[in-house]
């Protein structure tokens, strides 16, 4: 493979994975945008979705992309219950509480999964595998399908938020809770459903990544960091921005992995972190005006 082919391959890989990242991030940034909760257990929900897929795949023989249709409702229910029981208590309270509580939640979830399935890395197998070849450059089928699925979900979310009544309620609540209440929107219900939807999306992202690499109980942390980095780049609940940010991160990761020898499995974390620092230092309010109030004191 010559250099230009290598570069093209890297770019393709970066773009393909960007879709997955975008869907993954939306579950995080919408919760933040609508409820003001920074969910440090985000990656752990991802992990739960992945493990759910794995169980369905290995124990019950489901094709992962089919299992998706079971995973999403299950995670929706999980999210709904969790919101009602726990997250509700931290919503209109300051961020530190949310950080610590969600962190504790994440640890509990990861430890439970470890208890149930041990720490051995797992992976799912999908029928949609293989490569489409274009000369020396390949298009991996699984990753492409993942991208397609991710795009479908993002379009779905976009349509839902923009055109349905409930979606509009969510956007109203995000902007001004008091006004939304006065117009008759039941904020509690909005929060619960929003959280549930986001967890469902996150679980779906977990499914999507399960055939792409190994999963383990404590994999969540790196993904939460990724989500934070992309949100800093893209803004809260910003769908096109998430796609943009996801692809940027995907590109950076793949470029590093291909052209920097020995960088190893930690490439994701390092890329996220470096990007995050760059964004926070140069534009503390995030690109696209994303993060609220991450500003210096002047």
């Amino acid at each position: 493979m010559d250099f230009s082919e290598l570069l093209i391959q890297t770019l393709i890989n970066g773009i393909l994975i960007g879709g997955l990242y975008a869907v993954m991030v939306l579950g995080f940034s919408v919760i933040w945008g609508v409820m003001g909760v920074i969910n440090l257990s985000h990656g752990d929900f991802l992990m739960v979705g992945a493990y759910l897929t794995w169980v369905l795949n290995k124990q019950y023989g489901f094709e992962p992309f089919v299992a998706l249709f079971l995973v999403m409702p299950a995670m929706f229910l999980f999210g709904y219950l969790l919101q009602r029981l726990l997250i509700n208590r931290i919503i209109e309270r300051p961020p530190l509480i949310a950080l610590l509580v969600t962190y504790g939640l994440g640890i509990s979830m990861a430890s439970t999964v470890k208890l149930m399935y041990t720490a051995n890395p797992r992976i799912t197998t999908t029928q949609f595998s293989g490569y489409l070849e274009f000369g020396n450059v390949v298009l991996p089928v699984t990753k492409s399908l993942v991208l397609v699925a991710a795009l479908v979900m993002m379009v779905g979310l976009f349509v839902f938020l923009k055109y349905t009544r409930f979606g509009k309620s969510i956007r109203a609540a995000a902007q001004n809770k008091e006004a939304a209440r006065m117009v008759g929107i039941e904020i509690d219900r909005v929060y619960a459903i929003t959280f549930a939807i986001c967890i469902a999306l996150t679980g779906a992202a977990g499914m999507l990544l399960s055939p792409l690499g190994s999963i383990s109980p404590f994999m969540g942390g790196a993904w939460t960091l990724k989500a934070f980095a992309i949100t800093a780049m893209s803004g809260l609940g910003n769908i096109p921005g998430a796609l943009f940010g996801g692809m940027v991160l995907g590109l950076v990761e793949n470029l590093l992995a291909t052209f920097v020898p020995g960088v190893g499995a930690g490439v994701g974390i390092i890329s996220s972190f470096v990007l995050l620092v760059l964004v926070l230092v140069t534009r503390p309010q995030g690109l696209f005006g994303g993060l609220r109030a991450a500003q210096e004191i002047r």
Partner: protein
Amino acid sequence: MDRIIAIIQGIVFSRRTHIILLVILVLMPLLHFGRESCKDEGQLAAMIPEASCSYLIDEKPVTNATLLTFTQMFILIILASNWNLTGGFTGYIDFGHAVFFGIGAFATANLMGASRWEEWPALLSDWSFWPAMAAGGLVAALFALMIGSATLRLKGPYFSIAMLGTLVAVREIVRVSKNFSGGGLGLNLPIYLNRPMFYYLSLTIMVLIIGFISWLRKTEFGASLVAIREDEVGAEMRGINTTLHKIAAFGTAAFITGSVGGMWAYQNTFIDADIAFQQTRTIDMVMMSMLGGLGTVAGPVLGSTVMFWLRDVVWSNFLLYHQIFEGILLIIIVLFVPEGIMGMFDRENSGTSLNQIIKGWFPKSSPDEEDSQ
């Protein structure tokens, strides 16, 4: 109930109690000295599993294991108190403080000749322990200055997450830099199996740190840190160079944490990226300080002690479940006992800062946040 609390308070905080405790702690290992120990059998001794030294365990009331346990507890107290300097006093909740611990550990290890890099300069190898430990602290402090100048500009949760990201990222970077970290193999330090030495060292550092922080709080610098926590904008406007103060506190905490990391590395004899930069260490610091009472001098000490015994005594019986318990415990502490033990003792004058840190992130407080002061 109040009477009981007052009595406990009286006992726990009296100088006499502290002196008695100190004397006990100092004398304890003497029950260990003067008898043969595995150490006397030379370098080989480190290879001998504890079980073979069973004649030790049978004969002595205070075993190596006990000393190790206490040493670990002292280290926990030191780290929690230290973290409290940035987190509790200044109000910057640092979720990645363990990064300084790891940096100190690796710096010390490399300086003591554990480096796997052939080209590691001879001048920087084979240092003896004490300068290596101090150097570990210095390296950590330098790193703190560097990263702090960026992260300390961020407010509230963004700072917390940025520091968490720092911890995670540095861990990966260190892991990948095989020359400094030995990659998956880790680094092996010179073997020195002398539990009493480490015991006394950590005991001394612990007493010094508690004294230091106690003194610092009474100085103007300490008060200015609290002022920064209470009202950073107001403090800056009244002439306090908040950036300078924050960085000074941050760097000092990093230095101490880094030095302790170095000591721990020597004691452990082996380090790798995962255990040196263990994420749970920071959360421990946070939890223990919160449990005891954020922003007080005694808080981290109390919190660490309680947590440590909880873990060691209660949960070691439920080894598999203990991490789940800890996650749940964190949730419970945050939601139901945010003011910690100190907060329970003296509601009005406890000086615990969790509520204040929280309010500081919302200068115009929402109608729900009632003044519970």
